[in-house]
């Protein structure tokens, strides 16, 4: 096995007296889809928040792409190529669809005011590249006809797709999706599954997924990590997880 893209060990997050995350381990190989599952309140989203610099973890080590990132501010983590979505849609709803994709590329663009004022060749080039990348991902997520509409005028499913497009224009190494299928109808869920699988297969993207839709998780994941009450319960391939008695007891239930 090659070097993992993301390696988390002993991750701990404490809120006052509450230990929300307690010694979580995680190893994500590049090019894989890894799902994190577990009962509600198990601490999955808290793990996401710690990884992306949204929270400062109380303890543990996070190595991303060969470097330690625990405690870095969110924007620096994002610039290293780790990008996420939230459980609920968090688009810039008053901006147009294409503006959402342009602002996400801010870090890659030449933002000096003087360059903007005089529209230097470098400024024009980066503007053009950003537009091209935005157009590409709008096409890929089937949203190109909405480019100039305000983001909040689109349907829920379209907004979720736009969120993924907004992540992709930042050219991430690791895409972290927090319950992307929540609220989607079965057809939209199938589209989402196809999109995620394709991102892995054709864009060498690594995906870390939190999801409750077991059909989706079991069919798409290369690895699954189960978390229960803030502690790691099991890890393995979908088939191993399905048969793990601890997981069945804590989460999947007897069938």
């Amino acid at each position: 096995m090659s070097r993992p893209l993301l390696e988390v060990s002993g991750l701990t997050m404490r809120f006052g007296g509450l230990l929300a995350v307690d010694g979580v381990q995680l190893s994500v190989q590049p090019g894989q889809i890894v799902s994190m599952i577990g009962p509600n309140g198990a601490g999955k989203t808290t793990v996401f928040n710690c990884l992306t610099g949204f929270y400062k973890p109380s303890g543990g080590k996070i190595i991303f792409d060969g470097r330690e990132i625990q405690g870095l501010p969110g924007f620096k983590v994002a610039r290293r190529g780790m990008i996420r979505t939230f459980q609920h849609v968090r688009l810039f709803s008053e901006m147009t669809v294409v503006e959402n994709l342009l602002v996400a590329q801010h870090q890659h663009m030449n933002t000096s005011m003087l360059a903007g004022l005089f529209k230097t060749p470098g400024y024009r080039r980066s503007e053009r590249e950003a537009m091209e990348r935005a157009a590409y991902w709008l096409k890929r997520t089937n949203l190109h006809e909405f480019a100039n509409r305000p983001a909040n005028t689109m349907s829920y499913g379209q907004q979720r797709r736009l969120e993924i497009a907004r992540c992709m224009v930042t050219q991430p190494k690791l895409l972290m999706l927090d319950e992307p299928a929540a609220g989607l109808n079965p057809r939209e869920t199938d589209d989402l599954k196809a999109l995620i699988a394709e991102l892995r297969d054709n864009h060498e993207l690594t995906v870390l997924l939190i999801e409750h839709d077991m059909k989706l998780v079991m069919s798409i994941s290369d690895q699954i990590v189960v978390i229960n009450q803030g502690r790691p319960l099991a890890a393995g391939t979908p088939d191993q997880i399905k048969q793990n008695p601890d997981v069945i007891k804590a989460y999947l239930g007897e069938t």
Partner: protein
Amino acid sequence: MPESLYYFLQQLLNGLTVGSTYALIAIGYTMVYGIIGMINFAHGEIYMIGSYIAFIVIAALAMFGIESVPLLIFAAFAISMLVTSAYGYSIERVAYRPLRGGNRLIPLISAIGMSIFLQNLVRIAQGSRDIAMPTLVTGGIDIGPQDAFHASLSYMQMIIFAVTLISMVLLTLFISRSRMGRACRACAEDLKMTNLLGINTNGIIALTFVIGAALAAIAGVLLGMYYGVINPYIGFMAGLKAFTAAVLGGIGSIPGAVLGGLLLGVTEAITAGYFSTEYKDVVSFGLLILILLFRPSGILGRPEVEKV
């Protein structure tokens, strides 16, 4: 036109003059509030410092024998904006940024402390007495009959309108067209999400403080020359008025701040012109109370949506 109409026109012009400077200051309140949800109560002092810098620049250049009025005014604007920008940046860095993420009241208290500090800093450095700003622009045009009551519009008022308009247009272009402006709008909608997309949100916050301070300095230079008198306490009242204007228009909204500023200026001038100058402040703060009671989100503001 009957006399009463000219009288009304005069009040309107006076109101718009003061109102447009309120609007310039109010933008600083509203931009900062729009992004970090905090009222920067030291903002009025930035306006006052802007006036003082203008006075110092004009006095110093005049001492060197420079008499060209356009040059003096240009230098006053440029240096005053530059210095207040540094103040705005430093205030955010020293008094607010270390406190971010805690209770919202904490930076508010820090802001009040900063306001007292700046006021006294100027008082000690420049003395607490009134200082007369040199009159650089005189004269104006008359509107209406020469032999009866007529309205007049001074050249200084015209400068105020022109400079305010140019500043607003440039700011609007910056916010709506430039990349930094786009990032500002993103921060105003969702600061944390913007950060997680790789944008240095602390930098954007600092930028809004700098822009707000520069606009307050413009107001300081303009009003200093318009009234002709400055002292270390003018920032308090101007800050309160501009804050009222920002709330009136809908705090967080830039067009709201402009509208609120103009509305407040005209309301004050009408009150002063038809009732009594003494009641001018009563009416403007009465207006603030009414807005807070009946439409807390202001004229153009939207009701606060709870962010998770």
